[in-house]
């Protein structure tokens, strides 16, 4: 089976930044994403236990390479300074490239 190369963008962030991440994704034409509620530890200490707004979230989206740079730039410009947020990109293969 042939797999087509695309990028998997993962953003792990405080849950109150999740909607901002999603609206940036949608603003750049990304049609689908997956979110989870997660817990963990980072720069800003242990997160995910405590009040509702102090949880972490993970947003994953499979995107084509041509939209990736703009996406990463916009997220870093708008959200890096003020929110607990980690972003990384991986190469993945998908069977139906026309979905993305």
């Amino acid at each position, binding site marked *: 089976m042939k797999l087509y190369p695309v990028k998997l963008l993962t953003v792990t962030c*405080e849950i*109150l*930044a999740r*909607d*901002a991440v999603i609206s940036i994704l949608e603003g750049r034409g990304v049609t689908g994403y997956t979110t989870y509620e997660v817990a963990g530890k980072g720069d800003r200490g242990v997160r995910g*236990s*405590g*009040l*509702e*707004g*102090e949880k972490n979230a993970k947003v994953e989206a499979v995107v084509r390479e041509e939209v990736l740079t703009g996406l990463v730039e916009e997220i870093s*410009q*708008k*959200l*890096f*300074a*003020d*929110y607990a947020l980690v972003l990384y990109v991986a190469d993945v293969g998908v069977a139906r490239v026309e979905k993305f």
Partner: protein
Amino acid sequence: MEILDLIQSNLLTPIVLFFLFGIVAARVKSDLRIPDAISEFLPIYLLAAIGLHGGIEMRNTGLGQIAAPMAVAVALSLLFTLNHYWILRRLGRFNMYDSYALASTYGAVGAVTFSVGLSFLAGQGLESEGYLAAVLAVLEPAAFILAIFMANMAAARQARKRGPAGGPAGGPAGGPAGAPRPRMASVLRQSVTGKAIAVLLGSIVIGYIIGKEGFEPISVVFDEMFVGAIVIFMIEMGVIAGRRLGDIREVGVFLTSFAVAVPTLNGLVGVLAATALGLSTGGAVMFGLLLASASFIAAPAVLRHAIPEARPGLYITSALGITFPYNIIVLLPVMLAASVWAHGLVGGTP
């Protein structure tokens, strides 16, 4: 000595004891937690119960009485928010964003604190005016809206000073990182349609419609279980506050004093104003508590979105770790004593 007696007997109520127990559990690193779903559910339950009671009583007493207390509460809350900002910015030397965020956290109200106040009064055999639930619903967003509006204006002014590169003309310009400021309308919609205000307003309306007879079949859940539910929630509040005890050092001496002095002042002014307005002894305590309490559940959700530059560690830790315990343990009895005294002066019924 009466105040000390009141504080002492208040210390031995299940609400306060479970709160202190939660703190101890967190300090000894117990894994005790109330499951997430329950601790998210309980504030909704408490607000629904408060709203229903408020609505039922507003039907009995009529809507006419609400106007004056509502107007005074909103005016005081906005005035206090401006005063907080001034204190934090000028005397505390906090940056603009932290000052606005803290000012509105302390201008807004705490729904959990309000619930504890109701059960404190019930323990003293006192009642309060039901329409205060409606005041709670209006005060909740008022301080946020003012502070966010002013923070946006100040950010736009700064951007203009920096020159036209600061951001696109027309819309509010960006902060140092170039992030666009959220629009006022979206902040307004978010704070008014947020679940706290939504469930509170909804239950007030429903309580008004169903009245006393309609409430009868659901009173087991919304009346008799009320204090018990607060007690369960207090374990969680204690655990969260206990885990944050270490952060209080970062909050600093100035903000720690602010977190105690400001609620005291606001609360006592509130008690006196309410007494002058003709509220009952219990009603004046609740009115004072509305102005004294700080928001720690609604505030982070609104402020992280509206003023993301402000450090949430500051406003959550001071509101939950310092002001909340102080309010429920010390300030409630103090305000009750003040209210009894003030009602004695005006010759009202205690």
